[in-house]
């Protein structure tokens, strides 16, 4: 019942977000869509994904979309009938294909049991983070690469983005009060990643949220640009250096020996935490 209600609400919010004429309204609906999909991940026993979805997929993307909506004044023109027809046709084709595919899916074990068997050799107690940072750590290296690349890409465009802020003492005080707490809590979430629900991306994105509030109150971080630069690089740099180090030592690329795995993963998580935070913060601001 609960799943049904949440799922329908998710669908309706997606539909409204896509359908509404006003782009601002579709932005608002998109944020609701993000919230609801977070709840749905929880229902599907994927709390890690839920945390990321709520923080990154909904909140940070939502902030970006707010900025986008405010900055763009493009009208939504009506599509040609021909376009509609073939869009409908393609979508319908994929619908048919996927519905047929559904009939072939069986309940099976896949890799799950293998992961749980090897969990004790990974240096982490949380299955998702074991997959993310040890079993498939190479994917995560490239993923950190992707996010670093994206943010430096938008910095390289060298555009002047408008900054939105509200010069209000209440907001200023609140954001100052909140920041140390958020730093602490995001570190805690990062630390939780080693044995429970949490992780570096989640923690970093939370910190980015705190930094955004700080910036919304019209304050600049008391950090030099070069330091922010280095923070943004930290994740990719540390991760690839550690990978290189183990390759040079003869263990093999990104192959942690068992006794060093926990400490390596901790270092990597910390570096990803700080760089994710500053990368997303920069993504929001659009400049250093």
């Amino acid at each position, binding site marked *: 019942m609960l799943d049904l209600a949440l799922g329908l609400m998710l669908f*309706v919010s997606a539909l409204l977000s896509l359908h509404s004429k006003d782009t601002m309204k579709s932005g*608002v609906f998109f944020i609701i869509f993000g*919230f609801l999909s*977070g709840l749905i991940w929880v229902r599907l026993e994927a709390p890690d994904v839920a945390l990321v979805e*709520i923080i990154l997929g909904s909140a940070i993307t939502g902030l970006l979309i707010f900025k986008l909506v405010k900055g763009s004044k493009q009208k939504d023109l009506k599509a040609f009938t021909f376009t509609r027809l073939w869009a409908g046709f393609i979508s319908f084709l994929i619908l048919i294909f996927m519905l047929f595919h559904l009939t072939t899916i069986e309940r099976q074990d896949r890799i799950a049991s293998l992961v749980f068997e090897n969990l004790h050799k990974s240096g982490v107690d949380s299955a998702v983070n074991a997959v993310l940072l040890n079993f498939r750590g190479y994917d995560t290296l490239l993923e950190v690469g992707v996010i670093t690349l994206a943010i430096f890409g938008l910095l390289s465009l060298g555009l002047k983005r408008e900054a939105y802020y*509200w010069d209000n003492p209440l907001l200023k005080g609140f954001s100052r009060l909140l920041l140390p707490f958020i730093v602490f809590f995001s570190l805690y979430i990062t630390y939780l990643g080693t044995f429970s629900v949490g992780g570096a991306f989640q923690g970093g994105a939370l910190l980015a949220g705190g930094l955004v509030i700080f910036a919304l109150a019209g304050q600049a971080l008391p950090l030099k640009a070069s330091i922010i630069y280095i923070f943004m690089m930290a994740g990719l740099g540390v991760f690839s250096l550690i990978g290189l180090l183990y390759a040079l030592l003869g263990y093999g690329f990104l192959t942690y020996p068992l006794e060093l795995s926990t400490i390596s993963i901790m270092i990597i998580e910390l570096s990803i935490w700080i760089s994710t935070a500053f990368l997303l913060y920069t993504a929001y601001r659009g400049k250093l």
Partner: protein
Amino acid sequence: MMDLVYGLLLFLLVLNLLLGLVRVFRGPELVDSMMASLLLGTGGTALLLAFFKITKEAYYINLALGFALLAGVVGVAFAIIILGKSKDGI
């Protein structure tokens, strides 16, 4: 017995979300929509806490904390970005 009670509870919370969604849809102005989506944020946090109550899994609290933090950030950002005027500067 407990199942029924919890079911009723979850029903109330989901109804709450549903009403919020209705207001988001109807909201004559954008501000109303955003307010209602904040209600969804609170409602979602409440739902997570209810899950915590039912299952006693500790991670729900962290989720709720994250949810509460970010819902607020989105609300404030909405007020400042969409409703405010823009200036060059910070």
